[in-house]
Structures are given as C-alpha cells and as structure tokens.
C-alpha cells in the first residue's frame, strides 16, 4: 500500500508536468494543425532559465532571497524565456510556411528543434546541471498522506500545475480571447471572416503554450534535479504522446492524457522495470489510437470530398 501510494504520487507529479507540456502541443495543434516538435526544446530552455536565476541568486545552498521569492522568480524567468522562444519560433519558423504544404512546417519544426538543441549545447555545454532542490526545500518537509510523506516540492508541483490547468480552462471558456482561440481552432477561415485577428490568436496560443512548458521545465528541475540540453526530446515525446492519447487539439484531453501517461510510467517503473517504461508508454499510445483513432477526447471531423 505504501509503495502503491508512493508510485501514485510519482505518477501524479510526472503526469501533471506532462499535462502542462501536452497542453502546449494540443493548443498549437488545435489551431494550426501543426505538430510543434520544438516544444520540448522550449521546455528545456525554461528549465535552464530557472537554473540561471537560481545560480545568479546564490544557488540552492546559499540563497540570497527568501525561498518563496526564489521559486517565484525562477518560474517567472522560465515563463519569459520560454514564451519569447515560442513566439519567435512561430514568427520565423512557422508563419512563413503557413500556406505551404502540410509537411513543410513539420520539417521546419524538427529543424527548429535541432537548432535549439544545438544552441543549448553551445550556450550551456553538454554537462548536466542540477537544481539541488533538496537543499532549497528540505526533503523531510512535506504533507503526510496515510503511511507516506509527500515532499513539499512535489506538493508545489502538483498544486501549481492543477491551478494552471484550471486557470487555462477558465480562460479558454470564459474570456473573449479564449472564445477567439476556440473559434480559430474550430474553423480558421470562418473566424477570420468574423473579424477575429487570427495572427494575434495564434501568437497568444504560442505564448501561453510555451509559458506552460517553461513552468513545466522548472518543475522538472525542482523534482528530478537534472537539467541538460537533450532533456527536451524525451519529455517532448512523452508529452506529445499524452496529447495524442487525450485527443490532440482537446484541452481536457491533454490534461487527462498527461496524467494517464504519468501514471502509466510511474507504475511501470515501480512494478515492472524502468527499462521498458518508454516501450509501455508508446505501446499504450498505439493501442489507444487503434481503438479510438482520434484519441480519447478527440472529436470526429467531418470529411468532405
């Protein structure tokens, strides 16, 4: 029972980070029908931004500012860096290709991903860095749940990501811009004819999706410590799986898919073997797609000849 609870908390932590990342994939896909392969790299830069703030402000062992402020600043820096990169990508890598063939922006996304990876390699070298979060927030602190104690950092991650997801849902469903986002994702041309500034909506989508990825990057840094230039690839792939399993383009789908992948990974690692977590996760994706070709929450599109 204790082990099961522990794995559940692990799954929840991982899952909420994947969900944040998956939201970025899903929102962008919903609007542009583009698989933004560079999203994982945006997340990686967010993690590095958090690390930069942490280092500048004295590092985890001797922080110059209160811990809550430190963490807040780390998140803010990650949001700024990631959303800047996201919006720049949209402007220079995707917008010029918007009316091109379907595959051109896809390749451009892959190219952007390689470019950002190489840039990170040059800027930060190949060494992996560590946040040393246990020194920042002692690992003993935490909330007891039954027989286990949940580390404060994990609580922070889970609470923050759920808060963000709720805020995002409210934003999409209740605000004017959110309505515009839904309209553009439903039918871009019709939305444009109704006077919606499609370019602006797309920029906002990239901004929010990338900001969420940046937050996710700092979270992963806090929980798992290691930050390195290739971290975006696997995380991006997982988050992408999550978005697809949930039904790409659907916001609740991305959240649910993220949690599902997180749990699948945690239980596989706990009960089977960590070697095969990727195999199981990818296998899960294929099975879900075979049974429900549009993902769990995806809607069937009308096809016309």
């Amino acid at each position, binding site marked *: 029972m204790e082990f099961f609870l522990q794995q559940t908390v692990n799954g929840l932590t991982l899952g909420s980070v994947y969900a944040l990342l998956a939201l970025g994939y899903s929102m962008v*896909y919903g609007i542009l*029908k583009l*698989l933004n392969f560079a999203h994982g790299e945006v997340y990686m830069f967010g993690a590095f931004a958090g690390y930069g703030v942490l280092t500048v402000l004295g590092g985890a062992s001797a922080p110059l500012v209160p811990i809550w402020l430190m963490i807040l600043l780390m998140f803010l820096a990650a949001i700024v860096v990631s959303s800047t990169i996201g919006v720049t990508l949209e402007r220079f890598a995707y917008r010029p290709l918007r009316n091109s063939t*379907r*595959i*051109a922006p*896809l*390749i451009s996304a*892959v190219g952007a991903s*390689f470019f950002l990876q190489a840039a990170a390699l040059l800027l930060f070298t190949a060494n992996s860095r560590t946040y040393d979060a246990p020194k920042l927030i002692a690992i003993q602190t935490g909330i007891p749940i039954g027989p286990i104690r949940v580390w404060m950092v994990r609580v922070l991650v889970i609470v923050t990501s759920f808060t963000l997801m709720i805020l995002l849902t409210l934003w999409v469903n209740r605000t004017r811009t959110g309505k515009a986002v839904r309209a553009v994702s439903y039918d871009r041309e019709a939305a444009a004819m109704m006077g919606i500034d499609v370019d602006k909506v797309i920029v906002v989508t990239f901004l929010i999706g990338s900001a969420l990825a940046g937050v996710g990057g700092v979270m992963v840094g806090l929980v798992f410590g290691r930050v390195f230039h290739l971290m975006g690839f696997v995380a991006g*792939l997982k988050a*992408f*799986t999550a978005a*697809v399993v949930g039904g*790409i383009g659907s916001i609740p789908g991305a959240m649910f898919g993220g949690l599902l992948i997180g749990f699948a990974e945690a239980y596989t690692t706990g009960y*089977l*073997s960590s*070697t*095969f977590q*990727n*195999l199981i996760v*990818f*296998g899960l*994706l*294929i099975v879900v*797609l*075979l049974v429900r*070709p*549009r993902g769990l929450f995806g809607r069937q599109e009308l*096809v*016309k*000849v």
Partner: protein
Amino acid sequence: MSQIGVDQWVEQSDERRDRYSGWTAPARRAFDKLPTGWKLAVLLGAVAVYPLLVPQGEIRIGITVLLLAMLALGLNVVVGWAGLLDLGFVAFYGFGAYFYAIVASDQLPAHWPTWIAIPIIVAASALLGALLSLPSRRLVGDYLAIMTLFFAQIFVELVRNFGRLPFVSEDLDLTGGPNGIPGVEAWDLFGFQINSFKRHYYLLLILTVVLIAGLHNLNASRTGRAWRALREDTLAAEHMTTPVNKLKLLAFVVGAAIAGLAGSIFAAVQVGVFPNNFALPFLITIYAAVILGGSGSISGVVLGAVAIGYIPDA
C-alpha cells in the same frame, strides 16, 4: 510577340544556341542535342567512372549518397505517391540492417549465404510493412504519422533493450543492446565478395538504376495512377471504386522492401549496426532528401539525396 505564321520556337532557336558561352559551351550544346536515352547514358557513365577518379574517402561519400537515394526512392513511394505520411520508415531500414547483421555475423552465430539471406530480408521487411499498413486503414493524416513515428521509436527501444526483455533469456541477446552488432560480414554473391568501397558503390549503383527503372514503370502503371488518386483525395478515390486499402498496403510494402534491402547493404558497408543509426535524426535526413528534391518526382528525390548526402561531407 511573334509574327503570325512564324513559329516562336523556330524563331528563338538562334538565341537558344547562344545560351551557353565560355569554353564548356560546345560540350553543353552537344549534350542538349542528344536524345533522352543518350543523355541518361552520359549521366550514368559519369556516375559510373566517378569512383575510378576519386580517393577512397570520396567513394564512401558516394556510397552514402546512393544509400540515401535508395531510401529516398522508397520513401517517395509511400509519401510522394501514395501520400501516406510514414514517419516509421527508418525502422524498416533498421530492420533490414539488423536482420542482415544477425544472420551474417558471429552474433547468432549464423552465416547464411547472401543469396538466401537477402530475399528473406526483403520479404520480411515487406511483411513488416504490410503489418504497419494495417493501422492506416483507420488512421489518417497526422494520426497515421504519429502512430508510425512511435513504431519507429519502439523499434529503436526494442533493439536497444532486446536482451533485457522479460521473456528473452539473457544469453540470447540478438541485437547486442546499445553496443550494436560488430563484425558484420560482406555480401558474398556466389563467391564474389562485395568487400571494398568500390564494389559496394557499384552494387548500390546497379540496384539504384534497377530501382529507378522499376519505379518509373510502376509510376506510369495503373497502380501508380491509383496511388496518385489516393494522394490527391482518398475519399474521392474510394468513391471511384479504387481499392484504397489494398493500395495503401502495397505502398507500405514496396517502401519497406526497398528500405530493408538498403539496410542490409548498409550493415555490410558499415561492418556493424548500432541502434543510433536508425533513430529519428536519420529519418529526418531521408525526409529532407525527399522534400528538397520534390516529393513525388523520381529524378527530384535522387537529386535531393545527392544534395543532402553530399553537402555535409564535401
């Protein structure tokens, strides 16, 4: 522009003759006058004498280019003609390479004769392609791309961790894990060893030419037209009673067989196979060749392969 009664083409013939200047002009003018078949023969001749004139290292680049050309031709069938976005293509290449490496090294140890191994590998790759085509009956567009992408990922993961699979004994480490399989033997065609760069180059050149001829005819055939109909509008093609599923299957099978064959040569050229040879970056390289050259055009994708394969090494 032109007067009535004067053919524009005839009128401009002087201009066209003077188009080339400089010392290469006579040669280029002569080349223009050749019939198409002769032009191809000249090009082929140039490609065929290439390894005789350049050092070993350059031939290796030529081999890379020809392998990439074969792969681009195979991918072109699936993506360029049938319009199926197959991101798992590199897995067939890997499958062919690993299959050959396993049956032609001390790994098993089995030393199958090449003339038996190659047909089996090509058939097995085609079968795997047929299997992967099954989901394409239900999945369309990006979802097919995603599913095939994960097929490729699973292939690499499997190859990397085969020895640690729960139902496989430790001793039967077929794929050698992350270390790959070293010491793959050269092709041996009835006693003739394909064991030097030059021989590999010519083997690949012959296969590529045969492939181009075959694909050219296939593209002009009824099947080729049906594929294009499929690519332009699957739904419309289906309404015209085109056997959509059969054509998708055939496209995957042809692509996979070509990739498997290329893989088995690659394993022999490299004298070994490693999981990272078949990871995502190489898939992108093949796609880059196809897209740069112009997906759907045979000469285009070959040129694309030349550009993509040659430039990084030159």
